[in-house]
């Protein structure tokens, strides 16, 4: 291994989104950065896994391997005799708590596990938000591919009162509001007035309000940092809920604003609770500004999973000279006489540095630290599953977000964010769908207890939108035929992959049998019993994994719903009648989505200091796990803060125009004559300025 330089300005441990942004920002303004990660993958809590990796992670296999490596590194560090004080750094557990329901062995037999990109922390990007701004300005967007969210929906969770309440579109643009079939006319007017009032409260808001009224995209009124609220008729103090009340916004619409637009993580205890009026108004305006920028909804998703974001920032950091060492850790922090960190011990040697950033994958053993407190720690509740068909959105809107907010009689109950992704964002094979449910965790209820009812409900809604099974037995036969054909295709695929065909066949036979059994059960009216049984004893295996009691409603084709798409909105009764004589090339009938693979887990929110009261040295900055957020705005804010601590006078991830690169130190350069290349066009997509600068530098050298 090549020797590391002995000194870095900044050592960053952890490749989560926040850490990677800070690393990139520091390297970009000329700081020498060493970036490590204790794990062998990028992303930390923002990692994206294949199905196999996800299974290993859920079972904690990764931890075992790491524990061994950690013990080695620890011994190494311990062996090193050092004068002066130091702090030991241990690897913190990264795995989930209270995970249930993982069974990748069966899933692996169904499809190539590598075709999946499953996020630990799924995220979207607000079109007019700070993340997109940073990505565009810094050029990091060049490394990424984006797709607009197809549908932004909400659903009020009150299963007792309205068991079949459909997911509605979040009404935001003028057209949305007017076209909404769920809003009474009076509410439409109230909502229009309210949104205008929000826009008008911001600087330059009148123009924005006009623009929004005219159905155009709303331009950000001022710099995102400081939009001073205009002295309007309403006083800016108080909570957003109170402000909305003064604007006579009906409660149902206030809920939409609070949970679907402002993403309040839990049901407010009272109207004085929740975001302040200013935060809320700014949030609503930001949302309105995001509409129509890149697509009909306010959000973008990036392809290949959310781990691409930190990786792209890491790339920027590397491009600006950052050194990357994955699967290496800092095992000890060395302190000077004044108690400041002066160097760190890494698996590649001791490195002096001015700043150290530590994410929560590392835990510093502080001298006065009490034994770590029992697990009442906050967490994020997560569910990830692979479905055979979408549960949200209409056809062409497979990329969809649905905010399921808690009923008004459940103060403190968490908001659940359901993000549905498909092959269009390269997270799963064609014809499959990945559904993520995320919510603020609870100490008393596991992720499964919190999220399973929501999953069930979404599946029920989707199943209800599918036309009832055809009465004619002949047609059912047809359907089965089609299903078989698709299964054959799947088999062929497996053969190509060199998978054991016989096993696959056996699996499928078993699946079919089980499906048939379930169908019979349902026909016998014992559906409820089957449901209970399923909930009670979740065994391993494909079918046992199925959370969907409605899945059995459809025939054998359900498992391989390659092109099946559910048209129309959930709960909408606009389903076309099933084709009486389906031709071979006709689109296959719509099927109820079925869960092929799924897992529930809690992600504990960890801290590098682990709640100990003792302080870290001033130049060691902990990056604690952020609470779950469906957009990455909080991560940008945190990264910005950390960067400002390290480089108070430098711009955060600036553009090349704003902060041109400093000329490198003198070095010898020689240009060799060669024939002109026979290429028609040389074009730089990015870094044009840099190239020009390079060119001018080289020409001045040759002439000089």
């Amino acid at each position, binding site marked *: 291994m*090549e020797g590391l330089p002995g000194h870095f300005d900044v050592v960053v441990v952890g490749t989560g989104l926040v850490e990677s942004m800070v690393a990139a920002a520091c390297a970009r303004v000329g700081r020498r950065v060493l970036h490590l990660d204790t794990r062998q*993958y*990028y992303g930390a809590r923002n990692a994206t896994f294949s199905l196999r990796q996800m299974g290993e992670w859920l079972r904690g296999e990764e931890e075992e391997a790491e524990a061994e490596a950690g013990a080695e590194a620890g011994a190494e560090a311990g062996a090193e005799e050092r004068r002066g004080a130091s702090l030991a750094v241990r690897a913190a557990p990264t795995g989930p708590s209270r995970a249930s329901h993982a069974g990748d062995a069966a899933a692996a037999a169904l499809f190539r596990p590598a075709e999946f990109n499953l996020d630990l922390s799924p995220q979207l990007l607000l079109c007019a938000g700070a993340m*997109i701004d940073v990505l*565009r300005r810094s*050029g990091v*967007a*060049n*490394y990424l*591919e*984006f*797709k*607009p969210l197809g549908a932004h929906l909400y659903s009020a969770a009150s299963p007792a009162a309205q068991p079949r309440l459909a997911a509605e579109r979040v009404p935001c643009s003028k057209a949305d509001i007017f076209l909404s079939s769920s809003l009474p006319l009076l509410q439409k007017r109230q909502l229009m007035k309210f949104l205008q009032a929000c826009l008008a409260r911001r600087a330059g808001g009148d123009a924005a309000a006009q623009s929004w009224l005219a159905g155009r*995209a709303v331009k950000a009124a001022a710099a995102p940092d400081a939009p001073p609220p205009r002295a309007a008729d309403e006083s800016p103090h108080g909570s957003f809920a109170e402000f909305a009340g003064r604007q006579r916004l009906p409660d149902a619409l206030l809920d939409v604003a609070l949970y679907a637009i402002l993403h309040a993580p839990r049901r407010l205890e009272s109207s004085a609770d929740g975001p302040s009026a200013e935060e809320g108004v700014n949030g609503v305006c930001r949302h309105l500004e995001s509409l*129509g*920028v*890149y*697509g*009909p909804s306010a959000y*973008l998703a990036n*392809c290949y999973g959310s*781990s*691409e974001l930190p*990786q*792209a920032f*890491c*790339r920027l950091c*590397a*491009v*600006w*000279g950052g*050194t*990357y060492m*994955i699967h*290496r850790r800092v095992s000890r922090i060395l302190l000077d006489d004044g108690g400041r960190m002066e160097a760190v011990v890494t698996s590649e040697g001791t490195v002096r540095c001015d700043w150290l950033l530590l994410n929560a994958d590392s835990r510093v053993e502080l001298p006065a630290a009490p034994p770590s407190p029992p697990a009442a720690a906050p967490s994020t509740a997560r569910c990830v599953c692979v479905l055979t068909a979408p549960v949200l959105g209409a056809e062409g809107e497979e990329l969809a977000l649905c905010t399921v907010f808690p009923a008004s009689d459940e103060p403190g109950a968490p908001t659940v964010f359901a993000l549905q992704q498909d*092959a*269009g*964002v390269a997270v799963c094979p064609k014809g499959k769908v990945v559904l993520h449910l995320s919510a603020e965790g609870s100490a008393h209820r596991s992720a499964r207890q919190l999220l399973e009812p929501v999953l069930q409900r979404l599946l029920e809604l989707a199943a209800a939108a599918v036309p009832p099974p055809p009465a004619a037995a002949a047609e059912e036969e047809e359907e089965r035929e089609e299903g078989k054909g698709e299964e054959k295709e799947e088999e062929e695929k497996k053969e190509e992959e060199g998978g054991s065909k016989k096993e696959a066949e056996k699996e499928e036979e078993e699946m079919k049998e089980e499906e048939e059994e379930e169908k019979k059960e349902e026909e016998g009216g014992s559906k409820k019993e089957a449901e209970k049984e399923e909930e009670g004893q979740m065994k391993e295996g494909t079918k046992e994994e199925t959370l969907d009691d409605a899945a059995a409603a459809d025939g054998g084709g359900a498992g391989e719903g390659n092109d099946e798409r559910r048209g129309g909105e959930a709960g909408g009764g606009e389903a076309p009648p099933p084709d009486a004589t389906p031709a071979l090339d006709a689109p296959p009938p719509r099927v109820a989505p079925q869960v092929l693979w799924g897992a529930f887990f809690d992600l504990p929110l960890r801290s590098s200091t682990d709640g100990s009261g003792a302080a870290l040295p001033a130049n060691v900055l902990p990056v604690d796990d952020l609470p779950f957020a469906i957009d990455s705005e909080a991560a940008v804010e945190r990264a910005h803060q950390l960067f400002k601590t390290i480089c108070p006078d430098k711009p955060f991830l600036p553009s090349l125009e704003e902060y041109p*690169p400093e000329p*490198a130190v003198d*070095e*010898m350069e*020689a*240009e*060799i004559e*060669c*024939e002109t*290349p*026979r*290429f*028609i066009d*040389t*074009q*730089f*997509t*990015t*870094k044009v300025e840099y*190239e020009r600068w*390079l060119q001018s530098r*080289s020409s001045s050298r040759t002439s000089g």
Partner: protein
Amino acid sequence: MAAAGRVFQFKLVLLGDSAVGKSSLVLRFVRGQFFEYQESTIGAAFLTQTVALNDTTVKFEIWDTAGQERYHSLAPMYYRGAAAAIVVYDITNRDTFQRAKQWVKELQRQGNPNIVIALSGNKSDLASKRKVEPEEAESYANDNGIFFMETSAKTAANVNELFVAIARKLPKNSPQARPGGGQGLVNVTQGAPPAEKKGCC
């Protein structure tokens, strides 16, 4: 021909040990320049160059490793969606050839299954210090279904030829290696496009 006159854009990645001349190859190809003491790649890691074939135009979006290969810490995003890869070794350094074989394996494991791989024995101008015979590399390439050329970024020997050969090999009729065939993707880099004309009214 169906593909006549069309422009195809492909992501091309470079792989190989540090200091085998990955960046020099790119700079030679894209800008016709060569620096004897090329700094390890800083600041320039995203270049494009267009090659005109008889009936089509191939635009390469070239990704350099930016030094992340040094401690075996290349991010998986690097491989994603790459249609072509150039694995580079230094003909005066046997270790780099062995490592190149590892990179080929890594690509076949991580990369797009239809990726076009070129093996480049760079620094062919330093023939007197040669440690890897072209025959050996050639037979390795043949065995692994990839193609091989010795190049010199310094003299420009075979540099353009290498890229042109890749451009010829790239499939022009299969869907591009982009998510969903590139459908519905938006370009965030070039400012905000006008709102989509999707939906009703």
